[in-house]
């Protein structure tokens, strides 16, 4: 199938894991809604035979929130990039986790804005070069699992584009898990970010992930910072039982029944 992604890009691999995860989960595809924002990863919504929504930059999660609250039977997956979800959409991301709304957010993290040609982003490691950080990124990046853990997510995992089986399993688990689930998928971006940071081929990034990934299931997310060329802690970090937004909403809404009209 022709697609818009560059040679060596990891988004297609993550999308493939998602499709396999649907099979693994046993969820009826008619009941799955896929919502994307803007950017390279945002284009995933256009390649799946599902109800799929390619929305505005950063606003996939609010759109998905409306879908879920208006039809609780839908299984909602938000599929977008690190810039879309954590920068322009960062406020929505933490509030969705705080509400523990039942949805799965798959965040493909390639450490930069790829579609616009490699600009610095909220996850760009300190010192990494991009077209708007030519001398090296001088900002501290978000540790997304740590952010989402503090915000209240029920399920958090991080894998890279080389951990395809683990990623597929994690996505399936996340889709079944009630509450807010967050999957970070570290992905190569060879033609732009990779080229500027000594990983010009997709394979270079894959070698890096292979050599530097450290699997620690149950790791404390605060120990999962990513530094330029440093180790990448991967695994399932959080899997906890908390009431979802829908549970709480119903518990409270029952008090409205039988009340006077005004």
């Amino acid at each position, binding site marked *: 199938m022709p697609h818009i992604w560059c040679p060596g890009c990891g988004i297609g691999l993550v999308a493939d894991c998602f499709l396999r995860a649907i099979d693994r989960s046993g969820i009826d595809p008619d009941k799955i809604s896929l919502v994307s924002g803007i950017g390279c990863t945002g284009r995933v*919504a256009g390649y799946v035979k599902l109800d*799929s929504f390619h929305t505005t930059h950063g606003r996939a999660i*609010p759109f998905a*929130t409306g879908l879920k609250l208006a039809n609780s039977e*839908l299984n909602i997956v938000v599929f977008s990039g690190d810039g879309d979800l954590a920068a322009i959409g960062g*406020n929505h991301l933490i509030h969705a986790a705080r509400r523990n709304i039942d949805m799965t957010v798959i965040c493909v993290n390639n450490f930069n804005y790829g579609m616009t040609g490699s600009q610095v982003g909220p996850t760009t490691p300190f010192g990494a070069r991009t077209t708007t950080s030519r001398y090296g990124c001088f900002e501290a990046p978000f540790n997304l699992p740590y952010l989402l853990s503090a915000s209240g997510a029920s399920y958090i995992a991080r894998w890279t584009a080389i951990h395809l089986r683990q990623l597929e399993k994690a996505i399936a688990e996340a889709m079944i898990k009630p509450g807010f689930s967050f999957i970070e998928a570290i992905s190569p971006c060879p033609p732009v970010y990779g080229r500027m940071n000594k990983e010009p081929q997709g394979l270079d990034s894959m070698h890096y992930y292979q050599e530097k990934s450290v699997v620690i299931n149950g790791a404390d997310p605060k120990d999962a910072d990513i530094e330029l060329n440093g180790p990448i802690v991967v695994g399932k970090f959080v899997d906890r039982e908390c009431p979802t937004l829908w549970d709480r909403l119903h518990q409270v809404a029952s008090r*409205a*029944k039988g009340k006077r009209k005004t």
Partner: protein
Amino acid sequence: MAENQIMVGEYFMSGDVACAEGAISAGCRFFAGYPITPATEIAEQMSVRLPQVDGVFIQMEDELASMGAVLGASWAGTKAMTATSGPGFSLMMENLGLGIMLETPCVLVNIQRGDPSTGLPTMVGQGDMMQARWGSHGSYEIIALAPSSPQEIFDLTIVAFNLSEKYRVPVIIMSDEAVGHMSEKVVMPYVAPKSLTNRQRPRVSPEQYLPYEPDANLIPPMAVAGEGYRFHVTGLTHDERGYPVMTAEAQDRLVRRLVDKIQLNKSDIIRYKETQTEDADIIVCAYGITARIAQMAVKMAREKGIRAGLLQLITVWPFAEEKIRELSSQVRAFIVPEINYGQIVLEVERCAGGRARTVLVPNMGGEVHSPETILEAIQEV
């Protein structure tokens, strides 16, 4: 029983509360919003009422998210609304554009306050009229209604939902602080569910369904999430299949249809009220709270023997071009009072085309016009 929870009868209530009750009567079962003066009472009322009618109220983290959630709820098959004022209206422009592009039925209420920026949060304004028309980027057509009383905001909220479902377009209610915070008698009739308009549903199987294949009226039937149609929609320029097509031809077809589906149905959409215009040689053209004050000014002018009349714009967008054109060959002048420094007056002037004078009676906001100010303009012209 949810159905029994719909209010019917005569009540004394504010415009904001009447707006919420109009939405409930119109079948609205989802509201996402963010607190903002002077629209907060709509959210408060919806938070009480929606759980009683098996609907969902959610207060979002901002107005960007509120408008996004409203679109999502509509795509899940629910009638959905949000309400805000100027600063929040600005934030909603982004997802309003997506709503237009995806052709999403929903209602957005703007209880206008003094402006620009934070302006006069608790005081009246009508400065967002052009933003309602042009606020989101790009070429599009929108529907906006301007109620002048709590009764009208109740009635027009129902009309807004019906128009949005019929034309698959977000409909904006452009009210103002004076109407929102004024309390008056509101008569709420029983609105039979059968009398409400619902979006056209696909009449073909999922295999044959094209999300943006329009009917003869240029409006595509709409599938919703979870029904097995497995459709794709995007804010990118798209073809009938809903998939992105990056060509000038696809752009031409899409943008023309988005505009034409409203333009070609103007006679069904445009509403106005004429008072003593038959023999008038001066017409006051006003909307919202200002129309009620203009009515008093016209009465005072008549008492002085001046042949004045009132054209109250109820549908502000699309603009009542033909009506103004028609009246412009009959009258000497249009007097346009509005609580801004001249917005709708530009439209009146354009349509009058030099056949009649157009005089703005501006008011920067914070208080409504006095009837005397408008009368003075009538006498001077």
